[in-house]
Structure formats: structure tokens, C-alpha cells
């Protein structure tokens, strides 16, 4: 009896210590998970709809997106990050295509891959109107290529 109780109490102590270590490890994982990001936010306002011209898309360099505005269809936001290896693509007015400077991928103005190593079309992001009348792009919410936001003038 003596030995049994001695061992089982010890084992229980050891067990709860192990549980503590396990919980600590989980806590450490959570500790290492960033709570805030020191980088441009994923969801951001880009300004008043009236600031954006019709015609060729507007490039926002910090956010790495192109904003399209069309009289009939409205606003759309395309990622400027090449789906191949992450370089920033450039829109050329001459052929209305996106060209990647790194490995020569070419995308159509709707984001479809026309040429080169890019495996996927360019990503499109949700664009919404905030309650104070500004445009907001949310990179956490990818949308289909045809997504458009119509803003009443």
C-alpha cells in the first residue's frame, strides 16, 4: 500500500507537471503568433470614388493594387503581385496588358495569363463603399474576376 500510494501520487504530480508544460507550449505558440502586423494593413481605404479616373487603371504603389474604373460597370481592384514569384506587374497602356518584369509573364487586363510562367491569373479583391463614402479594398477577401462595385454619382 505504502509504495503504491507513493508512486501514484508522484505520478500524478509528474502528470500535472507535464500538463503544465503542455499548456505552456500552447501558450508559447500563441505568444509567438503576431497580434498586430507592422506592415500595410490588408483592408484599407483608398479614398473618394471621384478621385479615380476612367480609362487606364490607377496604380497604388504602397498597396500594390490597380484600381479599375469603368463608366458602365464601376470599380474593381486587381492585385499587382505576379502569381509566379511575387514581383510587381506593370500595366502598359500600349497593349492594355500587365507585364511582369521578372520572368516575362503577361496578363490580360482582366487578369488572365496570356504568356509566361505565371500559374494563375491575377487576384481580384473585394472593393466596397464605406459609410463615410470612401472606397475600401480588402485583400483578405479575394473575389472573382468579374466583381464590380457600382457607385452612384
Amino acid at each position, binding site marked *: 500500500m505504502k509504495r503504491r500510494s507513493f508512486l501514484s501520487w508522484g505520478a500524478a504530480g509528474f502528470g500535472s507537471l507535464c500538463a503544465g508544460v503542455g499548456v505552456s507550449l500552447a501558450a508559447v505558440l500563441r*505568444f509567438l503568433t503576431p497580434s498586430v502586423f507592422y506592415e500595410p494593413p490588408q483592408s484599407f481605404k483608398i479614398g473618394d470614388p471621384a478621385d479615380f479616373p476612367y480609362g487606364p487603371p490607377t496604380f497604388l504603389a504602397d498597396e500594390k493594387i490597380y484600381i479599375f474604373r469603368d463608366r458602365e460597370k464601376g470599380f474593381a481592384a486587381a492585385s499587382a503581385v505576379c502569381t509566379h514569384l511575387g514581383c510587381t506587374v506593370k500595366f502598359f497602356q500600349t497593349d492594355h496588358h500587365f507585364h511582369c518584369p521578372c520572368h516575362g509573364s503577361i496578363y490580360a487586363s482582366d487578369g488572365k495569363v496570356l504568356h509566361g510562367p505565371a500559374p494563375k491569373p491575377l487576384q481580384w479583391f473585394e472593393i466596397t463603399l464605406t459609410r463615410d463614402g470612401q472606397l475600401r479594398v480588402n485583400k483578405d477577401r479575394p473575389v472573382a474576376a468579374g466583381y464590380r462595385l457600382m457607385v452612384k454619382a
Partner: protein
Amino acid sequence: MNPIRDLWQSISRRDPLSTDKGKSELVFLNVWLHIHPNKVRPEGLKVKHTWYLGFITFFLFLVLVTTGIALMFYYRPYPQPAYQDMKDLQFVVFMGGFLRNMHRWAAHGMVICVFLHMCRVFYTGSYKRPRQFNWVIGVVLLLLTLGLSFTGYLLPWDQLAFWAITVGTNIGSYAPLVGARVRELLLGGHMVGEEALIRFYVLHVAVLPSLLVLLTMVHFWRIRKDGGLSRPVWKLKPQKAANLVHIGEPEPEPALAAVAAAPDKTYGLMEVVTGRPIFETVAPEEDEETVFSYPYAFFREGIALVVTVVTVMAVSLFWNAPLEEMANPAKTPNPAKAPWYFLGLQELVSHSALFGGVIVPALVVLALVGIPYLDSNPSRRPADRKWAIWIFTVFVIVNIVLIIVGTFFRGPGWSFVPPWVHVTAGAE
């Protein structure tokens, strides 16, 4: 065929712990535990003799290493980012404030415990032959602990940190000839700035901890080689050992006979050499009463570990580590104080820079190192060493009183202000 048992045995590689062989092998075959002897003298485990202060100091160091590594993930050693990281730990990082609290309080605890451990070793006379050199290593470990705490003090880069390090390094610069040089080397400049921060950071996270680990290993190894855990030999009565309680064990087994008869003894001398040993034999005598390290020593150590961790966690849950305004070299707080453990020195420096900054600290370190060699009295019985105990007690009390005066009784302009009197800073 029991694969689970096979698996377990391939890991543990020992007999069950219910057998003496298993208890032995647990220690002997385990790289983490084999710093312990298989069997220890029960008097060395008495709480009222060692107070487990050495263990507690070591466990606090373990707490500091773990929390310190975690904090390094969120620390950039550059003035403004460093301070902002402290705020992030407090306000956004999950458990960040708690870990910083643990690190800070454990660091203070370690300074206190290492000092108390030294006092205990002195009072029990445990530094005496053959342990003289281990005492010297202990003094070096004390200095390393102070160095670690001091270098860590700067890292939050707040007013408290900045001015404590400014004052602290200036105390050191009173040393003749080399003082100013050493300060320049330490700070990478003539005042505390971004250069000093990166230097203190490297010392704090790499240089000093490595040295501390290295010397701790030597310290433990020497305890083992110098006769094991300290025990109150002067109280031992030859027969008392035989009356020790046997816990959790069945009635006395014919263990001794079994050991004696063991045919597969695996140890042996490499070689027999001639010559007399410098020190007397310190391994337990054949007829001395000993108990197995498992469970007697291990459970006690485990309890010391958990008590240490629980205390640090409880303190950290309720008291936040201090964080003042961001360091501002243009604005000196009044009074500017060194870290608390140097306030005794600052108190002396306020009377005489040469005395407090050079002579006293140098003499104290020299005297501490010299204790085992100067004290020629072979007896460890307190009644036989009244003078030694008196002198050391005076040293300890003066030390504590000076620190208390410096911490609680010094106000603006280093004037004597009791803590219960509230002084507002003078008009600008």
C-alpha cells in the same frame, strides 16, 4: 511481446523503480540525472541545513533562460524600437507582459538567492577543505549574476534603465587607470547610447549566460567530487543514521547482499597509479547510511523547482515589472539611482568616490575569494568559529543596511529622506 513496453524500455533502459537496481540505473544511465550520485547522505537533504538555496538559484536561472528566449522574439536592441517593444509586450503580445514580469522578478530573485546561498555556505562552513575552490567559483558566479542583471537592466530603454546604467557604470569608472577605459569599452562610447544598448544586449543574451552555464557545470561537478551535498557534520551522531525513516519502501530487503553479490558490475578502475591524494577520500564510507537519490533527492528537488516557479508566477500575476518614460538623456531624474544591488556602493560613493567606487568593492571581492584560504580553522562547528561568524555577519548587515538606506532613504539630491516623508521635486 509488448511493443509499448519495448518502446518504453528502449527509452528508459532500466529496471522498474521499485527495485534498487532500477533506482540506481535511473541516475546512472540518464545523461540529465547522472550529475547526481546513485545514493546520497540523508542529512544533506535537510531543508533546515541548506534551505535548497543553490537549487532555487539554479531553477530561477532556468526560468530566466526560458522567459528570456521567449522575450528575445519580441525585442529589437535599438533605443526607440526597444522601448516600443516593451509597450507591445505589455499591450498586444499574448502573455507578453506576464513573461516580462516573470523575467524581471526572477532576475531580482536570483540576485537575492545567490547572495543568501553564499551566506548559507559561509555559516555552515561548507567552503572548507576540500571545497575551497568551489567557493571561489561561487563568488565568480555571484559576480556573473550581478553582471547579467545589470546588463539586462538597460534593455527596456526607459528612464529607469538609462539612468541606473549611467550611474552604475560611473561607479565603476572610479577605478584607477583602467576605470574610464573599461567604461568606454562597455558602453562603446562615453555615454549610454545605442552603442551601449547593443553591447549590453550581446553580453546579456550570449556572453554572460554562456559563462554562467559553463561555471555552473563546474560548480555542480565539484560538489559531487568534493563529497556531495553539504551536511551538518557537527550534529551527526554515529548511531542516528541508522534510525532514518524509510519511506515508501517495503520492509528492509536484502539489498546490500544483492549489491555485493552482483556479478555484472560494470564499473572498474582504468588504471592504478601510485602517489598519495592531496585531499582525503570524500566518497561515502562503506558503513555510512545513504539513501537512493530516487526518490529521496529527486522529489525534494522537484518540490524546490515547483515552489520557485509558483512563487515567480504568483508575483508576476499581481505585480507588473516597472516601465517608465522612454530614456531621455536630457532629463535626469532626481535622484538617479543605480540598480538596487549597487545602491550600497552608490551610498558609499556619495561619501567618497575612491572609497565606495574602488577600495571597498575591490576589497570585498578579494576578501570573498580569499575566505577559504584565509580561514585556517578546520572546524565547521559554529561554536568553534565565533569570530568568523561575527565578521561575516557584520559584513552582511552593513551590506543590507547600506542597500536599504540607498533604496528607501535617499531622496532628491541624495538627501536623507525617510520613505514616509513625501517630497515634491523643487521648482524649476
